[in-house]
């Protein structure tokens, strides 16, 4: 429990989730410091939502330990939910209730409720207050869910792919709202999303899941610093297997007419300088990668090794 101290908003320690014989997540460990934004990334079926369900106390992991603010969410779900705001992957609510009724219902449950804030956000998102939830568009449902999640003035915001199905405008509005929240209250955020551009602008730390295993768990800046696209010409095929190339830790090599392009995960200026100066290597260049490119390199068909 030493790692789950008061500085951590949430912590997963070797968490395994199974559905029958299928393993959704295996021995996943990571923690999110208070006030930070953690992006948990992965392809569909990587196990993100299963881990979120465990975090929210909606499912008990088969193995491992989950804590939120030092407490077990399975045993203390109701109490912890008063400190959490949740936007689920598929926002849901009683279909016959209007947004206003849902907000009124939620206001009775939280110790402190920012009713004005909810109203303001619903207006800003243009979510009609008197239309039953079942008749709202997918984007409106997501926006309502975000407004409700923020209404309880949460210490931890859990967003499970909140941009799923949202158009560009709605997506932008959602991220703006989050940025504003972070700026005002310093809320801790755990976010899963396929909108890696939006994530890149917000996240402090990134975890990348592949087939239930956590490949990456590190600060976004560190991640981006060690991933580069390296292109070079070579006069000798042995360059690919050379020690100087291995020092850059290449994930993928792509041969082209003009030379070779490699995505490396162990980039450093020194290692690159040694590689560029190695015999048989010419015109070596290194360019930074976006989070999306790193994600594709790691989780694409050919990727996998961090």
């Amino acid at each position, binding site marked *: 429990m030493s790692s789950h101290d008061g500085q951590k908003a949430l912590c997963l320690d070797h968490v395994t989730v199974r559905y029958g014989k299928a393993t959704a997540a295996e021995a996943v460990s990571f923690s999110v410091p208070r006030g930070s934004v953690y992006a948990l990334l992965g392809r569909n079926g990587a196990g993100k939502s299963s881990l979120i369900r465990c975090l*929210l106390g*909606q499912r008990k992991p088969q193995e491992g330990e989950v804590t939120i603010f030092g407490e077990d969410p399975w045993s203390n779900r109701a109490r912890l939910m008063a400190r959490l705001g949740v936007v689920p992957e598929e926002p*849901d609510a*009683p279909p016959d209730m209007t947004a206003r009724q849902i907000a009124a219902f939620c206001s009775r*449950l939280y110790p402190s409720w920012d009713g004005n804030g909810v109203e303001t956000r619903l207006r800003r998102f243009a979510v009609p207050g008197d239309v039953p939830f079942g008749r709202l568009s997918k984007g409106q449902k997501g926006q309502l869910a975000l407004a409700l999640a923020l209404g309880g003035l949460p210490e931890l915001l859990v967003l499970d792919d909140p941009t799923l199905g949202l158009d560009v405008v709605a997506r932008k509005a959602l991220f703006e709202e989050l940025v504003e929240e972070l700026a005002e209250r310093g809320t801790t955020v755990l976010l899963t999303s396929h909108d890696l551009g939006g994530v890149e602008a917000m996240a402090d730390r990134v975890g990348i899941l592949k087939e239930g295993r956590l490949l990456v768990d590190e600060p976004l800046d560190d991640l981006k610093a060690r991933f580069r696209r390296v292109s070079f010409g070579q006069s000798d095929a042995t360059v690919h297997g050379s020690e100087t190339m291995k020092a850059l830790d290449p994930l993928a090599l792509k041969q082209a007419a003009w030379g070779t392009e490699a995505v490396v995960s162990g980039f450093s200026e020194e290692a690159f300088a040694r590689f560029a100066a190695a015999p048989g290597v010419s015109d070596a260049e290194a360019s930074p990668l976006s989070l999306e490119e790193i994600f594709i390199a790691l989780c694409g068909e050919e990727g996998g090794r961090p």
Partner: protein
Amino acid sequence: MRGFTAVLSRELGLRKAIWAAALVAGLLPFLLAALPGMTYGYAEVRDASALAIAAGSGELLALVLGATVLGRELAERRLSFDLARPIGGLAIWAGRMGAVLILSLGSALVILLPATLAGGGLAALAARATVRSEVPWYLPAPNPLGLVLLYVVTVLFLAALAHVLGTLGRSRSPWLLLDAAIFVTLGVVVFLTGRALYRAEALFGLIDGSLFLVIVALAALLAAGAAQVTHGRTDARAGHRALSATLWSLCAVGALGFAGYARWFTNVSPSDLAGVYAGQASPDGRWVCMEGPARHRRDLPFRFLYNPTTGAFLRLRPRWWRANPAFSGNGSRCVWVEGRDRREIMTADLTAAHPVAERTGIEVAGVDSRLALSPSGRRLAVLSNGTLSVYEPDGGKQLASVHIYGTDTLHKLNFEKYLGSHILFPDEGSVAIVRVHPPESDQATGSVTIQRFDVASRKLAATGRIDGLSGQLLVQLNRTASRFILRERDGAAWTTSLRDGTTGALLTLLGPEGHAREASFLAEGGLVATSVAKTEPSMLWIYGEDGSLRQTVDLERAGVVLVGSEPRPGRLLVAVGPPGKGWFPACSLLEVDTASGSHRAVADGLTPFTWAWWYSDTCTLPTGPAALLALAPDGSLVRVDPATGQQTTLIRGTFKPK
């Protein structure tokens, strides 16, 4: 609590339309009552239909809402909205089930409202539903509050059942097969247990056990529904597991508890009796058949063959209106009737230290059966539905059969014939039948007919007849059927006479001018008659086998006198009790010397066991160990040593003495 009330008010708010629908349904009784061709009055039809519609719709709503209000969201995994809020799992479940209950019961009330406002006849209809005569005797007397409570519990049960069944059905899990298997297994346990109680005539045990089962089932259904939400949450598989584990473990506890309760209820030994209130002794006095209510078993009577010397016993399963057990003349065998739907004669070998009940394979058709064993016990006479049949109880072979009297379509008449018919197997070859034909009116006279049935020739012969008898007639024979005592009761006066067992001829009147109250045969063939209870000192008259008066005994104290037994030849154990006290009076026990007429006090505060004997075809005093048995006013069965007066309690009774 905040979560519960929030969920409850939300669910109620979402179903506001139900109230409007209920109000519309409340107008239907007015339309029904106005339909042409109604046999009953307008108000009666309106109120009755309002009650029916209200009760039915409340239960229907409980089923529909119970199956959907939570189950659908669980099945469609839409519960995450509530689970992502600070609402406890129990509050999520209880809020919804509470809404189902309020909507079901509330809608029923709304449906009743218009009819109540219009006429107010509902109170009368409700009162009609609480009439005692319309409720089976074995159920508690109904009252309006009880009926309302019963309805509330029914609605809750239906809602919980629908919720659990709906959720299980939607899960479509292969584990449903296991659920079904457990359900069938527990159902079989409950059925077998219920059948065992039914067969043991333990009606109140069955009612109490069923009530326990319903309570456990309701608790199991509610707990299972709650467990599914609190432990399963969004995990359908875990939810099903939690539901099944809770449901079946509680149901198993209920079923096994019911089985254990039934076993405890019926597995009674003589020491469990709260007292002995009826019985009979074998001719040799080694065994007695006794009956009494068992402690903590809702006064359910149990009957035992009991050896007062060794304490060995065999529990019988008779019904009270069936034949009393019959002993063979030598006391080696006892027969009785068992079974409810299929009535079979059972037998026990009383020479064994611990007799066991054995089936004879002989079935009796009617409820009015009389049994008589031959002196050796190797032959059995059965009078049932007017037919006398003779069997070998070992193997159940029928030896002969003869029609004695016609079976009446009216059971009452048949039963009277049964009561007035006495059969005795005085030897191995013939059966004596003495039948009483009471006067059919105050002006008419009654008669007694005497017949003999020869087993070998299968011939029934009339041997004697007594006509011109009046009043209530009672007949009791000696063990050889050579004599019988005839008692005629005309108003308060008894006329008691000794009659020849073959012809019915008068041998002597017993007591002064025949006014003896009761008479019993002695072991060596004589008989003893008692005086009518008066304030004067009680008397005994001892007669020889030929009917001649041998001795007159003045007991020197007033009261009811009862000759209890003949503990040894020439000695009688006689009780004299306070006049007017009927049930287990605290008597003074005296030992009377029949030769000299002297007597001495043995013990006080007891009643001879014969006081509680079933009315029997014979009235020979008990001898042997049974002759020493007496009953205390609290129902205790006590053995008395006539020499010392020492008392040993064999069965401790707890009756409240009157």
